[in-house]
């Protein structure tokens, strides 16, 4: 075991992906000499060369559009979009082209393109640097959408995404880039949880709390706080947002009878809304309370001096947990 930051774990995972397949490429803005603005690709261009770790022109649609072309030629591009709010110039290529091309070809084509997106707030950034647009992608058939919550998953999941023959949108919790944890970078991935599976992070009996990305740590801390209050929270890291591991979700809710979904994204039309609908449909007779959502308000991301009020935190999650006992 090695102790790594989440950023470094991704870096090690990407290195493994480049080593595992000579067709794997990294491409994006500033990913070469600089190693990316978050240093996730640090040192990779030096070791794998400019043909495999490509500093691209500054145009997101171009990054994804050329990645599609490279994939059609047999390559496996791993693209970096520098910040969540900058993905939209590429949204057209992702949604109208990348997501649909396999379907359109009746299964003839494979599009093994991974799109890494640092997402979420909490870092005091200017506008367009703190967003959570994952639901827009999860709503699009033809894409796999995942998010890692900690260094060990970051290391394994980025390799699984790179090896996947489908397009994967990979959301990285940017405010957790510097969180540290033990990562096994010696052993292979055989024992790793499949990318589309959720993980029961903290077992519990009273309330199921579902989360992903930056909220995983917050929810784990909430479980500790709730325990002192005599409440047993089961924390599940969803990891995959499309498809959802509904089997794991339903099994937990059937046990606890209460469900709270937590994400930084706005609640309206979000992942939580989808989960609430599915849980209500499948676990109706097990529910002691309605499924509650804790997320951002339905406003654009506010100036960063307000973000502590905008983003879910331990207290707001605890508040929602308490409310599930009031029905």
């Amino acid at each position, binding site marked *: 075991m090695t102790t790594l930051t989440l950023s470094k774990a991704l870096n090690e995972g990407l290195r493994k992906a480049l080593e595992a397949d000579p067709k794997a490429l990294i491409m994006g803005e500033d990913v070469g000499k600089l190693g990316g603005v978050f240093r996730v690709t640090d040192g990779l261009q030096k070791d794998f060369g400019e*043909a495999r770790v490509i500093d691209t022109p500054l145009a997101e*649609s171009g990054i*994804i559009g050329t990645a599609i072309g490279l994939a*059609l030629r047999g390559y496996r591009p791993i693209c970096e979009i520098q910040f969540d709010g900058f993905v939209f110039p590429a949204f057209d290529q992702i949604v109208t*082209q990348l997501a649909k091309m*396999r*379907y*359109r070809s009746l299964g003839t*084509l*494979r599009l093994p393109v991974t799109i890494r997106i640092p997402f979420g707030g909490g870092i005091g950034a200017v506008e367009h640097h703190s967003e959570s647009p994952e639901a827009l992608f999860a709503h699009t058939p033809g894409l796999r959408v995942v998010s890692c919550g900690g260094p060990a998953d970051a290391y394994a999941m980025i390799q699984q995404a790179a090896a996947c023959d489908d397009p994967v949108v990979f959301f990285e919790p940017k405010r957790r880039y510097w969180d540290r944890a033990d990562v096994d970078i010696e052993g292979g991935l055989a024992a790793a949880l499949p990318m589309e599976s959720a993980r029961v992070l903290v077992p519990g009996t009273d309330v199921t709390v579902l989360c992903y990305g930056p909220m995983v740590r917050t929810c784990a801390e909430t479980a500790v706080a709730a325990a002192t209050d005599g409440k047993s929270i089961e924390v599940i890291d969803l990891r995959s947002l499309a498809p959802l591991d509904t089997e794991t979700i339903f099994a937990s809710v059937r046990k606890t009878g209460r469900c709270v979904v937590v994400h930084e994204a706005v609640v309206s039309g979000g992942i939580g809304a989808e989960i609430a609908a599915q849980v209500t449909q499948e676990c109706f007779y097990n529910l002691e309370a309605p499924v509650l959502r804790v997320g951002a308000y339905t406003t654009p991301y506010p100036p960063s001096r307000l973000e502590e009020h905008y983003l879910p935190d331990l207290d707001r999650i605890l508040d929602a947990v308490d409310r599930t006992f009031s029905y």
Partner: protein
Amino acid sequence: MAVKDAGRAARPVQRAGGRRAAAREPEREADSAELIQLLTPEGERVEHPDYPLDISADEIKALYRDLVIVRRIDFEAIALQRQGELGIWASLLGQEAAQVGAGRALGPRDMAFPTYREHGVAWCRGLDPMKLLELFRGVSHGGWDPTAHNFHLYTIVIGSQALHATGYAMGIQRDGALGEDGEAVIAFFGDGATSQGDVNEAFIWASVTNAPVVFFCQNNQWAISEPLERQSRTPLYLRAKGFGFPGVRVDGNDVLASLAVTRKAMQAAREGQGPTLIEAFTYRMGAHTTTDDPTRYRLSAELEAWKLKDPIERVKQYLIRSEQAEMAFFDEVEAEAAAVGTRVRASCQQMPDPTPDSMFDNVLTTETRQLAAERAEFAAYLDSFVAEEAAR
């Protein structure tokens, strides 16, 4: 011999007021643009020093055959749409020479990325025309194997494929597949697409990576109802200069010129000399699609002027005058085209709908649990009608 761009003379000048009219200086450059031509509208063979074309009578006759057949396929498809057999059709009428010239300039290992109007290129790549009709009938979204003929799926969102072509070309570079017998890519798009960010981004990518890609722009003068003046104040081929690679304007109604210019650009790309922008100056003789009504936005005089530059007639005139073909040849081609037309018509009418269940196929490489559940739910729903029917 280079001739002056005769096509421009027929264009109606759009004036939206004095200020706009006064600001039209750059347009004059378009009027004086050099147009590469090897066969005049009258069917006279001319030479161009940069584009020598050594071509036999048989090869020209083969091009003539292509032109006539793709026009017939187009004609049949329009009729099939009118009869309700196709949902829509995007006609290539008038653009046959641009497409056949470019299509026949490609080697088997070159890769083509079309829009949705490249029926002539599809023909040259050996794709069964029925695959095109499947798309416009609503039976598939294309559904052919792009690797079988090195002809990618039709792309409907304007300009997206220019980036795919460029990325594919970057793959060729990484495969080390450049050289005299190397590979290159051709991206097709229209004049309207040159306003798209993706096309401009593709120019930038291709330029800075020196990618082996040829951008083949069929400037058919109209993006649905909007004339070229709404897209550009500079001749399109000149844009290449700003991106740092060569641009050339070719008479898009001249199959020999289209062939020669594309051949040269593709060979340059294969040999590692990077991208070229080809502007094939042509005219969309028909409507944008079968749902469009061009009488609302353009003058019939313009159409009449372009009829005189018909891409097929000039080849026929040349073959007759140079005594390279007898009338029997033209009759044979006509008969063959009619046979293709008959087959297209019959096959289209007999084309079965896909099975309802097939809409769940190929979303991802493996079916998700949710999709499997939806598929089963849908099947049970359909079955409920069968059960209901049986119970009656």
